[in-house]
């Protein structure tokens, strides 16, 4: 009996790789589920909170879905003034809103200072350490998250952000980024903030550190080839790890954009393929539970990551 065709068939089954078409099908499914979720929950608890802030969030989401422009700055400022905690929690509607803004890719024209945000960062940094106890580690993570969003949405003064980032960088020596538990949770926000700063003169002092930390993440992704990076965190939750992992992939793509080093785009292509089996299991229901909202955030980050990857890969092919 000739076993070769059977072995060949078996090998083809093993080798069946994730394709870009597979990613796109996944994205379409997730988009449909998220839109359904947003429409169903307009009148929910958090939706009402938004309405009290005189925001027509329903209208904004409609506009987002339709692709119209809307005024991000006022919405974000109103929200920040009302409840700063909305931005630090991965499971809040505010966090989703910020992701929506990012997906929309509209640039914000005016920069707005926000004293509330600076105050929050100051308070967190007073008791923050990347290598301290869980509370201190979490404070370092939240501070980095706030600085990143502040820089990204252009409502945090860059000189101020650079000063605070310097403190966070000094507190995270390169040999401490990974420990036996995994990568320090939340450090993706530090790298992404650094990548915003090093594009300008103000970030020159962080250039070597940014390159070194990027290289460490690249090596970890390429050598360990983990489906989801192991994370050093007190939150033992797979969804949180997936979320941070996706933020790392996005950081790696941003490294490619800033430094033009194709190894990072290559690593992102592979990491996005490895995360695919986890994403395919994500099913968004209509419940306003924190678990469900985390799934939506995972979906947003995944969609953004694939979108960016494809944009960059197609540009590379053209050159």
């Amino acid at each position, binding site marked *: 009996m000739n076993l*070769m065709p059977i072995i060949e068939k078996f*090998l083809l089954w*093993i*080798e069946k790789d994730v394709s870009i078409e597979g990613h796109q099908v996944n994205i379409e499914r997730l988009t449909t589920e998220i839109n359904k979720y947003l429409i169903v929950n307009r009148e929910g608890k958090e939706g009402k909170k938004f309405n009290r802030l005189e925001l027509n969030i329903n209208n904004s989401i409609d506009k987002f879905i339709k692709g119209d422009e809307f005024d991000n700055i006022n919405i974000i400022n109103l929200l920040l003034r009302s409840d700063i905690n909305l931005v630090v929690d991965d499971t809040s509607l505010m966090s989703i809103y910020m992701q929506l803004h990012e997906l929309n890719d509209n640039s914000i024209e005016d920069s707005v200072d926000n004293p509330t945000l600076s105050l929050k960062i100051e308070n967190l940094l007073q008791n923050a350490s990347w290598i301290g106890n869980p509370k201190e580690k979490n404070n370092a993570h939240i501070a980095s998250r706030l600085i990143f969003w502040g820089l990204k949405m252009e409502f945090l003064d860059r000189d101020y952000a650079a000063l605070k980032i310097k403190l966070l960088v000094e507190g995270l020596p390169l040999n401490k980024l990974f420990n036996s538990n995994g990568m320090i949770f939340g450090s993706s926000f530090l790298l992404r903030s650094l990548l915003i700063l090093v594009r300008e003169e103000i970030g020159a002092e962080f250039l070597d550190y940014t390159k070194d930390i990027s290289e460490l993440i690249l090596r970890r992704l390429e050598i360990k*080839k983990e489906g989801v990076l192991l994370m050093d965190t007190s939150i033992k939750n797979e969804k949180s790890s997936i979320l941070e992992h996706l933020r790392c992939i996005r950081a790696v793509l941003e490294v490619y954009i800033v430094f033009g080093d194709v*190894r990072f785009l290559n690593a992102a292509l592979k990491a996005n*393929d490895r995360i695919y089996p986890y994403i395919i299991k994500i099913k968004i229901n209509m419940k306003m539970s924190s678990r469900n909202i985390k799934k939506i955030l995972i979906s947003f980050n995944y969609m953004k990551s694939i979108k960016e990857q494809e944009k960059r890969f197609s540009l590379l*092919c053209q050159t």
Partner: protein
Amino acid sequence: MSNLRVAISAPIDSNLYSLLVTQGCIKLENVEIVGVIALKTFTIERAWYEYTRFGKKIFRKIFNKYFNANASLQSNIQNKAGEYLSMDLGLEHKTLKKLTGSNNIPFLKVESPNCKSSLEFLKKHSPDIILSIGSFIVKKPFLQIPKNGVFNVHMGILPEYRGIGVTEWPIIENTLKEIGLGVSLHLMERGVDTGPVLMKRYISLTKGDTLVSLESKYLKEMVNLMILGVQMLRDKELKPVPQKKSEGKQYFETHKRMNKLAQQQLSCITNDDLIR
């Protein structure tokens, strides 16, 4: 003039590159092969190492190697290149066991180059140099055995292209003119391809080359460079050039789409690009 004592660390008993290097060294004057180690064909440690390195591709590699040797174009081309070299060097045996046996060279099959039996075997034969064939990571105790270090031929130009996939990367990064493709003989260190560079040989591109046809050109250059390195060490003509970390990067396996891109770019190469 006393003989240069050479030990060889091979990936498997039937590895063509190892056979050719061993045969080449046997023919050198004032060079004595004091021992050859080869990895056992299957060990859990090895299987895991290969899987982490090649991922799912390892199953295809095993299939092609042991059950379907003539199936792939690559193995055909490689075999052909190997055949010519074998004729040049007068290689008659198909395994290291037979080759070493017929030349009275001590031979041992080991689980890993770093395992106890390997280290004891090599220490006992006190080599001046070890030729490391293949890309197994060797640890400090292994590196400390030979007086003159461990030679390795890297499939890429050092210091610029360290790591793997370094045939595709210079094509993707469009550095064929400035850096080119080739092989580098270097002394091994704990870091990946970071040791002092001894010699380089460039591989010439020809119009119509594919990634597969390029691979076949490497074998000849790697064998020749390793043997030349031994000759030059014997004659005290080698001048190691230390690498600076900043002079190069470590590369990793290319994603299948990157690989396809490299192949496409290779097919667009014009005469103007074929400078090296």
